[in-house]
């Protein structure tokens, strides 16, 4: 009698009791995934908040993320992120295959698929690093005005042009402050390639350049100072020459690329949310790679073979798929919508 009672209690308390048919570890992984999903939901909702708030002046993703490796200077929106998405989905597939092989107790297959998963994860993190590099470096450069809005430059066809294509070279009076020069051993952020005066003078010397503002253009409202022919519905507004020169009077900063303070693409929130959300996701991918690698080593060492169960692979698999799942949403909200 006593023995029976003890066994029952053991069954209840030592993981024998499986609510909803899921083992303790799997259940805890689902708890974690649910809470992490809600964290990401909060971030994306905050992103949506800022986007709704600046609905008419938010940067257009296709103009920002249009690089592809080895194809310099070409306008190729979407393709690179699509490739990244595919890489991540594929590494999810190798993960499911590893779990499936685990169910059949095929140790070498599990190890092989785990290896491919780790590889896919590394390629994805690398791709994201490249994407960040392009984002931080920027391409065209822009001017920030007194009010904090970003103005960009286009030629007579409405195509974006780089600062270096028209900025004048003036005698420099401003030297980069380095750590070794200052008494307090501090340094300043690196200076942009051109000063405000150089950009403004260059603009005045080239009559075929126009200013493009952050705001979207709508056919129905005819504002003063809007260029008569270059504007397209829902694209950023291009100004007339006179209005452009007036706008440049307020220029205070030359902005090249992006950092956490300002960026050449437009709304300041845009870069902050990009860094924060893709960074947080990238951190998840990175930790996923580390965890997957540990599990991969355990598989090779035969830990799960001795345990006669590959459930651990299934548990990290859940996390890995979750990372993929989050990317599907990041992809939609940052690049598509």
């Amino acid at each position, binding site marked *: 009698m006593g023995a029976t009672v003890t066994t029952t209690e053991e069954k209840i308390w030592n993981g024998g009791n499986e609510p*909803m*048919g*899921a083992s303790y570890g799997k*259940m805890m992984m689902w708890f974690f*995934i*649910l809470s992490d*999903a809600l964290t990401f*939901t909060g971030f994306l*909702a905050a992103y*949506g*908040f*800022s*986007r*709704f*708030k*600046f*609905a*008419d*002046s938010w940067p257009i993703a*296709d103009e920002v993320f249009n690089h592809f490796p080895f194809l310099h200077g070409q306008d190729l*929106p*979407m*393709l690179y992120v*699509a490739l990244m998405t*595919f890489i991540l*989905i*594929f590494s*999810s*597939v190798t*993960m*499911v*295959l590893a*779990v*499936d092989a685990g*169910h059949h107790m095929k140790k070498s297959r599990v190890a092989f698929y785990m290896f491919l998963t780790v590889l896919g994860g590394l390629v994805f993190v690398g791709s994201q690093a490249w994407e960040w590099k392009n984002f931080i470096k920027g391409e065209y450069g822009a001017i920030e005005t*007194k*009010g*904090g*809005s970003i103005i960009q430059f286009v030629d007579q066809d409405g195509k974006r042009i780089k600062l270096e294509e028209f900025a004048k070279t003036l005698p420099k009076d401003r030297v980069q402050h380095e750590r070794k020069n200052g008494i307090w051993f501090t340094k300043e952020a690196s200076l942009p390639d051109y000063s405000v005066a150089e950009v403004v003078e260059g603009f005045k010397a080239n009559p075929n350049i126009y200013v493009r*503002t*952050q*705001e979207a253009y709508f056919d129905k409202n005819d504002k003063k100072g809007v260029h008569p022919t270059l504007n397209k519905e*829902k694209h950023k507004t291009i100004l007339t020459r006179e209005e452009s020169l007036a706008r440049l009077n*307020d220029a205070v900063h030359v902005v090249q690329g992006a950092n956490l303070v300002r960026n050449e693409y437009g709304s300041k929130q845009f870069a902050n949310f990009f860094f924060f959300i893709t960074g947080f996701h990238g951190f998840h991918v990175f930790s996923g790679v580390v965890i997957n690698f540990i599990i991969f080593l355990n598989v090779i060492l035969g830990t799960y073979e001795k345990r006669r*169960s*590959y*459930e651990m692979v*299934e548990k990290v*698999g859940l996390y890995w*798929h*979750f990372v*993929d*799942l989050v990317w*599907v*949403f990041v*992809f*939609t909200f940052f*690049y*598509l*919508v």
Partner: protein
Amino acid sequence: MAHEHNLAIFRGRLKFKSNEQKIWGVLIFLSIVTAIEVVLGIYKPTALMHPLISPFEGGLGATLMNIILSPFIFLIPLNFIFLFLTIVKAYYITWDFMHMRDEKASLRKAVVWTFVFLALYIALIFLLEGDYIYEVYKTSLIKWNF
């Protein structure tokens, strides 16, 4: 581990012989969905760039209709398609890659309903508030773009 895999997707219309085949099948499906998204995202067909219905005006009935039909009034069809396809992809990742299809209905509901309710709730609040501030910027005397 012991439990069987459910090998049918698309509500039982497509059955696979083994779990491994189902995985490849789902991969192909997800790739097609992603490809559709990318093509639409690159070409942005003009037919899909304007909301299908313009908002109703006047009275409680109009307000109610605006709420009920909000996806077609306040969203352009392109974004509606993107959101729909995203949820489709999320469904297949969760159901087939994360094996939700093979879990008990109680676990499925505990995870999915909790998430869906809270996500919709926070999205609704944040987006309504964001839109309100947009209106304030647009219609009031605050001038920020100088």
